């Protein structure tokens, strides 16, 4: 199941399958979804390279429930859980 964000053009990285390519449109962290405060969650994503315009590609999916995912962000590769990737909105290429 793929989710298109309400604006109609961006997709939620947390629901994308292996092979998805796109550019990061924006980060929308929500309070109360994870254990971290929304702003801290956002800061950590930025620190790993998730900034607007970054080239994204879902390279691998975990063996159980296709979770977590390994995402190429620019020239780095980052592992994150799908629940954490729900905050990342991307525009597909």
């Amino acid at each position: 199941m793929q989710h298109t964000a309400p604006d109609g053009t961006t997709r939620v990285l947390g629901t994308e399958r292996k092979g998805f390519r796109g550019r990061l449109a924006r980060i929308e962290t929500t309070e109360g979804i994870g254990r971290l405060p929304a702003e801290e969650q956002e800061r950590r994503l930025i620190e790993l390279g998730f900034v607007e315009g970054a080239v994204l590609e879902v390279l691998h999916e975990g063996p159980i429930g296709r979770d977590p995912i390994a995402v190429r962000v620019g020239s780095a590769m980052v592992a994150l859980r799908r629940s954490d990737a729900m905050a990342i909105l991307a525009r597909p290429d």
Partner: protein
Amino acid sequence: MKDAITEAAARQIEVALVGAPNCGKTALFNALTGSSQRVGNFSGVTVERKAGIATTPEGRRMTVIDLPGTHSLRARSLDEEVTRDVVLGQRDGEARPDFLLVVADATNLRGALRLVTELKRAGLPLMLVLNMIDIARHRGIEIDEDAMAKALGVPVVSATAVRRAGMEALWARLDEILAAGVAAPGPMQWTPPTTGELRRALHAADDVIAQTVRLPELPHTFSTRVDRVLLNPVAGPIVLLMLLFAMFQAVFAGAAPAMDLISEGFGWLGAVFAAILPAGLIESFVVDGVIGGVGSVLVFLPQILILFTFILILEDLGYMARAAFLMDRLMGGAGLHGRAFIPLLSSFACAIPGIMATRVIDDRRDRLTTILVAPLMTCSARIPVYTLIIAAFVPKTTVLGGIGLQGLVMFGLYAAGITSALAVSAVTRLLFRRGELAAPLMMDLPDYKMPQARSILLGIWQRARMFLKRAGTTIFLAMVAIWLLATFPMPPDGATGPAIEYSFAARLGHLIEPLMAPVGFGWEICMALITGMAAREVAVAGLATVYAVGGTETTGHIASALSQQWSLATALAFLAWYVFAPQCISTLAVIRREAGGPRYMWIALGYMMALAWIAAFITYNVTAFLMGAG
């Protein structure tokens, strides 16, 4: 009274290495300091502090300190806090460094460039070292150092820490800087960055990269290709399992020749001393107590080193983060964080570094759970105990086409440790942590790197030295104590039973025996359990001494003595006990320190003791019943 100038000249310049984990910082530290390093702890915390003296080609000396890896000064873990506090000069008992070497992985510059902008605000003079430049060049990455230095406003130099020639430029720059005198620190302007500032810093880093770095068309093809197999949802877990299985087979089968050699060596040494010393108390002390006791522990050095070799190589390869990726969901099901995989795997070697490695888990509750279950992972000190019992009671045959039965039982014991760790954590989650939101898992998957023989050998040597030091101190003293307990008081004249029956050891053993009788442990085992509190492997030496003094042990092979004295049910119960028992005072001490108080230490002690007793009880009675029925 010295004047200010000589005092300043006499004070050695202190250079601190700062950089992300996996940027080759430790390799650079090794290349700078060679064999002069001292490993200790930062005051008040168990964070490892490595310092050494570097001497430049022109003969200038400086102190180099390796700070814990960090992505930013916005510390999230204990390790990162130490780095922040040292850099900002806020750590008691730790002088603020004079100069920072910011180490960057030249193949992945973005994070390091952002770190440079952050560190510049801390006010210390600094230089950026583009480490692993050889790998970057090999991949077709071209970096214009001068342009980068201009764009960043700090000196930039390339290096390959693992090659002597790769260090020349860095040494030359260090000489220049030391000759000119290190600049005085500027004002400290660092404040925790906001999300906006972080974004701007990353975009600025991207701009610098765009202006000064030429990237190849197809980035890191090698790691991508390898990951296609190693992170494949089917092949990945199979490879991981095969790796772990190969590791245990190597520990068991591969170490045998070296172990035989050590065991024969000690046997020979014992025979020599038995021949030259007059028969009596002194001979008994030297031959049975010292040589027999210490030898029976030292013989496990090869197995422990093989295990560490595997772990160090996998770590340096960059595979550990992949393993965490593959295991995250499984661990998450048990209420553990994917990052807990690395501390738990280290705990196979020893729970102490494992518990210290939990600092990579930034969530406190996730970290505490990991600390509590880490001692359930089969540490290398249990290997002696397992090996002994398996050698005595499990036949040396192969099953299923060539798999050694003994290795298989060993694998099973490891599996029991892992399963119980996951189960305990799952129960904790169900009972005490209901309704908690999940902590995030976000981590870098670094490119694969060829492990450097030198750093692996250095790591193995440090582990070997630690073990030998333990054998020379704790274990040696425990052996002397055991021998004393097992020898005195001596039997009265005309006594008929074995001498040991009259000793303190026997009395102590008899004292606890009623408690342990339901699980099939006699007083000899009870006594070994007491002595094993110093260190698990001492229990083996304890058994060796008890049976040697007891007179049944003749050839130096305690396994054969055990197989005559113990029933199979007792032996299996003993193994089950050891899967769970908190038999190590140093581990409990580390839990207390890392968990910030005695509470969790008592919890760990209590729950493990209870599990050990229950597991041994079930094993003993079920085996006894089956044997009786069979």
